[in-house]
């Protein structure tokens, strides 16, 4: 039996005797079914109604699945940094080679002018340096792109669903720190209403905590 998520609780609250109804049901049909319970559950979407409304079937992705989808951020950072470092080495080498080449060219030109030989035409950059430069840029590019922090959904319902599914894990930057502008569950005020607080669970948690304290004291 899976642990009921907040969504289930919210829906139960609708289905029970004192039912709440989405005041914008057409929008629920339009967005709700497709978006696995990610529709924005705003207070003004609810209004009390006399008869209970039907059950809305939602599906929620468990946390483990959600974690599987998004790769671990710290390994990504390591990969991106090593790729970028390798690319920078290549680029530095290409830069040095090009500089040496042009120095050699000017030296040649000077000596050939002094010896009144036929002036050698200034050859363009050797192909291997050009290729090395292009490859270095592409490699660094891949490294930098891999190092960018993950995008966040701009649609309110998807964003809220992401928080619901992943919590803090979905809002970490590449160093594994939770981002500063992460505000947490936007439904906290709905869940925190006294009527919907799971008092038994909290009581159990408190008892556990007290027991833990007692053991630590001994």
């Amino acid at each position, binding site marked *: 039996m899976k642990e009921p998520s907040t969504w289930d609780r919210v829906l139960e609250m609708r289905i029970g005797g004192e039912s709440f109804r989405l005041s914008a049901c057409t929008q629920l049909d339009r*967005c709700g079914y497709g978006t696995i319970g990610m529709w924005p559950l705003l207070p003004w979407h609810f209004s009390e109604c006399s008869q209970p409304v039907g059950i809305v079937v939602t599906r929620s992705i468990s946390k483990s699945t959600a974690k599987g989808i998004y790769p671990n951020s710290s390994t990504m950072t390591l990969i991106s940094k090593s790729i970028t470092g390798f690319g920078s080495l290549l680029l530095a080498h290409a*830069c040095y080679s*090009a500089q040496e080449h*042009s120095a050699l060219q000017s030296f040649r030109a000077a000596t050939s002018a002094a010896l009144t030989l036929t002036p050698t035409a200034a050859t363009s950059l050797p192909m291997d340096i050009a290729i090395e430069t292009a490859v270095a840029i592409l490699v660094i590019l891949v490294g930098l792109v891999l190092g960018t922090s993950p995008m966040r959904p701009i*649609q309110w319902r998807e964003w809220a669903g992401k928080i619901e599914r992943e919590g803090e894990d979905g809002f970490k930057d590449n160093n594994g720190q939770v981002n500063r502008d992460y505000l947490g569950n936007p439904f906290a005020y709905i869940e925190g209403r006294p009527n919907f607080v799971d008092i038994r669970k909290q009581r159990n948690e408190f008892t556990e905590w007290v027991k833990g304290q007692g053991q630590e004291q001994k």
Partner: protein
Amino acid sequence: MPSQQELDFQISPLVQESLVHNTRTLHNLQSLTASLFGVGAGILGLESYSGFLFYLVFSLITTLLFYALRIAPTAISSPSSSSSSTTSKGGVLSRYFRSPLDFWTAGLTNGLAGFILTWTLFYGLVRA
């Protein structure tokens, strides 16, 4: 009577912070890579139009790579965009950016100054 767009925003509101975060991430990447392209163009000794062409091509490659590595993979994890009418308009891209045109073309102007700066610098350093 509110317009259609206002109604759309009321039905599916946007998260401003996410929007800013996405745009800033892309912008940072583009200004960073633009100066990198300047280094490349300087090493290759490109001049006038070929240098700008180089910049154009590589900044498009940047955006493409960003799309391929950062945006496209998330399409698998979200079954949302297929069925709802509001998100399916622009595909995966519309999950993260408001207008696709901005996404593809903003990079050209974002990094141009940085590109020219490092381009001239490295051109001078290498050809001195």
